[in-house]
């Protein structure tokens, strides 16, 4: 009964479904294009591809969303949808912070290595310069 009274809420017109599907396809095409142009590395693209696929499936089978909402015990399918998207984005943002932290540490180590390398080269060249000078004095 409850599902029946809600069914008008989740009923998508074929127009919205087509728009959603087109958007999902466009999004996946954009991801592909970014990879093709080397603007996005493959390992970062998987999650976005899955997201696009999810959008496509949602557009093709709107009943799925109702099932998920029922499983979550949420009356309003919209709320279920927004919660899922929000959690997904939250996880993704955290993942990016982790990646950024690792890269910050790598950049720091790189800067340290370069600084020490340059200092060492400088001290070597000044030693060699000193030798060259003393040699030229001898000759």
């Amino acid at each position, binding site marked *: 009964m409850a599902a029946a009274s809600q069914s008008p809420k989740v009923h998508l017109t074929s127009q919205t479904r087509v728009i959603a599907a087109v958007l999902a396809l466009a999004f996946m095409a954009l991801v592909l294009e970014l990879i093709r142009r080397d603007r996005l590395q493959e390992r970062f693209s998987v999650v976005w591809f899955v997201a696009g696929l999810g959008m496509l499936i949602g557009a093709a089978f709107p009943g799925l969303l109702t099932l998920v909402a029922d499983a979550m015990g949420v009356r309003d399918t919209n709320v279920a949808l927004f919660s899922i998207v929000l959690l997904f984005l939250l996880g993704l943002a955290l993942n990016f912070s982790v990646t950024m932290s690792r890269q*910050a*540490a790598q950049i*720091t180590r790189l*800067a*340290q290595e*370069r*600084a*020490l390398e*340059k*200092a060492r080269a*400088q*001290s070597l060249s000044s030693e060699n310069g000193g030798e060259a000078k003393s040699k030229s004095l001898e000759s």
Partner: protein
Amino acid sequence: MRTLVFIPAWNEEDSVAAVIADVRECMPEADLLVIDDGSTDATAERARAAGALVASLPFNQGLGAALQTGYLHALREGYEACAHLDADGQHPPAEVARLLGEVYADRADLVIGSRYRDPGKAESDDYKPTISRRIGTGVFRFFLTLATRQRFTDTTSGMRAANRRVMALFSERYSPDFAEIESLQLAVREGLRVEELPVRMLERAGGTSFLTPLRSAFFIFKGLIVLVVGQFRPRHAGAER
């Protein structure tokens, strides 16, 4: 003992040359390294002109990263002991030599110069901190003591001496954000002998403290988080003794 004295410096062109000269005079046998932390002024040139080896980080990375560079260099070049002091002239090199003495005598792995424990006195009388600074110091003292079960008075001191065990640890693990406090906690947790030695410190020659009340509050808050998280960190595998 082969000793490296390193000086982290960020825009300290006014004082760095004098500090180098002082260190040279006090510890003529020690090698000197200035870590220029992305200075935008003439710090690197002045240091080089004063005869120090200069490692310039390509951009400002923070004190922790600068200090770690020094520990890394000391470890790689096979120094048996190292020490560092601030470039603003508030740390007398003679006192740094005293810290190194403790390391040479193998009484401690890491020695901290504390401005508070004046010999025979509980508090230093030539050092008058502001109220916010005093609160911060108190909070950090309390929690660091709680975390390490060892009494520390000057938790943010930038004057330290260390042996190779500490170099190995700090060159791998040194927080860029909260270098001074977290490093003490880390060293104690790894079972290293950390000792505090009362030292005489001077008024800073140039520059001003970066602390405002709001910043202090944030600083303390961040420090507490770092300390709490630090208690749950896994121990380092390589630093057994």
